[in-house]
């Protein structure tokens, strides 16, 4: 199911939390919603889930507005987790499945099937409070999947999980993506997002600051930058053509070139001019892009 977020805005007591935000989610893709704390990620998720109404704009699901049937096709994993500590896993799974309009029988069958798939069948009747934190996190993940949703919205899905369970969840998400599910992940863990998401939406102070696939973003951020390590004074590089700026950090020299500079030629000239120990074309990571974007968009 395709989800179109169209120019949504939301303010709380005159404070604008989300402003004119537009992006889309597509079946078979995992979209990462990135942004610093207070950027408006959770509010955006809540608006998509119809927990909050936007002041302006609208959300379309395959060109339809949100209704109960669509709501039943969305699975949600909130950021902080707890569930009902005194109640059995099975009871809680059935309760949430029933709230997603599954019959009692189907809820039971689905709960058992999922618990078996996630190797938790032995804990079926156990109260949630008796489970380890990691197992509780996994259970919360199952709650969001119990009704086999078409759209999955997850706030920090890897939060609190050990590497093994992270892999388990990641693989499950990849399988769901391959099955054609629409997945939106909000996260702070950029390395994790980089390894999982096909597309990114970065917001800052409620506004979209970046959008697209990692390659596309990198291309936009591709700054013709060369990183090198040398014995001489880096000032000698200033003479080279196409060099805009030189930065030095951690004994590394960052050489910024013009947009249309022939990078290979410049590298050859550096080799000719200086005694270099290291010389490479810089490819920005998602982390670099995130930091740089936030810095450049903060007044």
């Amino acid at each position: 199911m395709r989800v179109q977020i169209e120019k949504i805005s939301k303010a709380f007591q005159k404070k604008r939390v989300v402003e004119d935000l537009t992006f889309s989610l597509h079946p078979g893709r995992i979209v990462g919603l990135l942004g610093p704390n207070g950027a408006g990620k959770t509010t955006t998720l809540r608006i998509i889930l119809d927990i909050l109404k936007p002041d302006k704009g609208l959300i379309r699901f395959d060109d339809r507005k949100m209704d109960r049937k669509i709501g039943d096709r969305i699975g949600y994993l909130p950021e902080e987790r707890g569930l009902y500590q005194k109640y059995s896993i099975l009871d809680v799974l059935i309760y949430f499945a029933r709230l997603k309009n599954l019959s009692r029988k189907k809820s039971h069958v689905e709960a058992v099937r999922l618990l078996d798939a996630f190797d938790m069948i032995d804990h079926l009747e156990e109260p949630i409070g008796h489970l380890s934190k990691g197992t509780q996190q996994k259970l919360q993940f199952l709650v969001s999947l119990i009704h086999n949703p078409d759209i999955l919205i997850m706030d920090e899905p890897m939060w609190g999980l050990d590497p093994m369970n992270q892999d388990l969840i990641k693989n499950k998400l990849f399988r769901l993506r391959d099955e054609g599910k629409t997945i939106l992940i909000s996260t702070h863990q950029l390395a994790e997002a980089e390894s999982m998401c096909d597309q990114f939406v970065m917001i800052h102070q409620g506004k979209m600051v970046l959008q697209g696939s990692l390659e596309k973003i990198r291309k936009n951020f591709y700054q013709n930058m060369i990183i090198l390590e040398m014995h001489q004074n880096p000032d000698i590089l200033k003479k080279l053509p196409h060099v805009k700026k030189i930065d030095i950090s951690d004994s590394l020299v960052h050489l910024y070139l013009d947009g249309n500079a022939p990078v290979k030629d410049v590298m050859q000239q550096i080799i000719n001019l200086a005694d270099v120990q290291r010389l490479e074309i810089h490819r920005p990571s998602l982390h670099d892009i995130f930091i740089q974007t936030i810095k450049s968009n903060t007044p």
Partner: protein
Amino acid sequence: MKRFLIITWWEFLRHFKSRSFLLSTFISPVIFAGIILIPALFLEDPSANRFRLIGCLEFDTTGICGKVENRLVDVNAGNPLPPFLRFVTINPDTSPRLKERFQNLTELKMELDSLEDTYNTIKERRKFIFQKPRTPGRESSLRSTYDDLIQTREARDLMQLEYQQEKQTTDSLWRIESIEYADNLLNALQLEGYLLIDPEEFRTGMVEFHSLLPSNFLEIDPLKEAVQIVIVEQRLKDEGLRVDKIEEWLDPIKFREIQLQGEEKEEFDFIINYLGPIIIVLFLFISIFTSSGFLFGGVIKEKTNRVIELLLSSVNHQQLMAGKIIGLGLLGIFQIVIWYGLVLILIAFNVFTAGEVTFLTAKNAGLFLLYFVLGYLYFASIFVGIGSLFSNEEDAHHLNQFMRMLSIFPIVLAILVLETPGSLLVRILSFIPPLTPTFMILRTPLGNPPAIDYLISVGIMLISIMIGIFVAGRLFRIGTLSYGKKPGIREIFSIMLSGK
């Protein structure tokens, strides 16, 4: 609707299975029953009733103590509560010294009696001699008996004097020892107090009451009443009136209190008409605050662990709030049904009779249930609205305590209803929403309120509930998704008024 029912059932079931529900259903009533019944049992059990054990000490054998005791039984017979004064005659032990004196006194008395007999015999003999005139030796007989008579009379008078002195001293010692004995019983807390009856002073209406505490703390009014009757009885006897007539006149009155119950009239019974409704109100309040407390705590817990967001991704705010309120309301009704069942079981086992709960007619039970539902919905809307504003139980704890204290306020004010159930003040207070359920439940069996009062109170409660739920809905919608700092009063009012 289906989701609303799922939430209702879930809330009902999960709290029904909780330990808190079991405690409030079975332990709280036992504690309340204990608070109410233990003092009553304490008063009813003569072996345990040392707290109001009153003694009676008299210095002769006229039996005034016994009369007072009998009259006290008559006075208590007209009291609806079990007698709280138990009356015992004090029989002091005498010391060996006093026993010796009693022995001496007895011997002196015997000697005195013997001298009296001798004197009387001589007197009789002289009378006989006098009656036989002119017999030989008459004169010598008269002379010799005269000497005997004078000697015996002198000896008797001396003995009389000695006896009187000895008796006076012994009596004084006896009084002192008896009072000491009774005081020791007081100091040993075996008695709460004792009546000291001196027959001479008793006739003048003077009776002493000795106790460690001021007598009004001991509530000895029934005792005063009994003594008054005995004194009046004594005085009437002294006036020469017939004993059977006196008994008849002093027979305690039988005061029947008849109460209008709609078109019917029923005899007023303290336990049935007074204590019963108070117990009902207390139990309904346990139920209301058990359910509202679950609601308050549940919302905060779900907010803390973000379950509320999960729920809101499946149902809307109204469905969630309504499901919770109705689910826990049904739990409250179920709790009342359990208590009603327990009452029936207790009646079946003759713990108390069906006659003691006659105020629980179908009409009254229906009214109690109506005011329970209205009271619960009113308080639940406040609790759920306020509860949703807090992100953790610690922040909400003080407010919860404060709200619970405020909720007890109607019960404290209930004394006004018990005193004057039909007064204008009570009627006005019955129309103030937080007080309405308590006041109307109490007024129903006590004051038989007019139909218009029911209509007005129900109307006011319905309007209040609608406003409460509307405001709670706004607070819930905003509050459930707000985290971070505690909301201030201004912020709360702003949300209530603007919904933003």
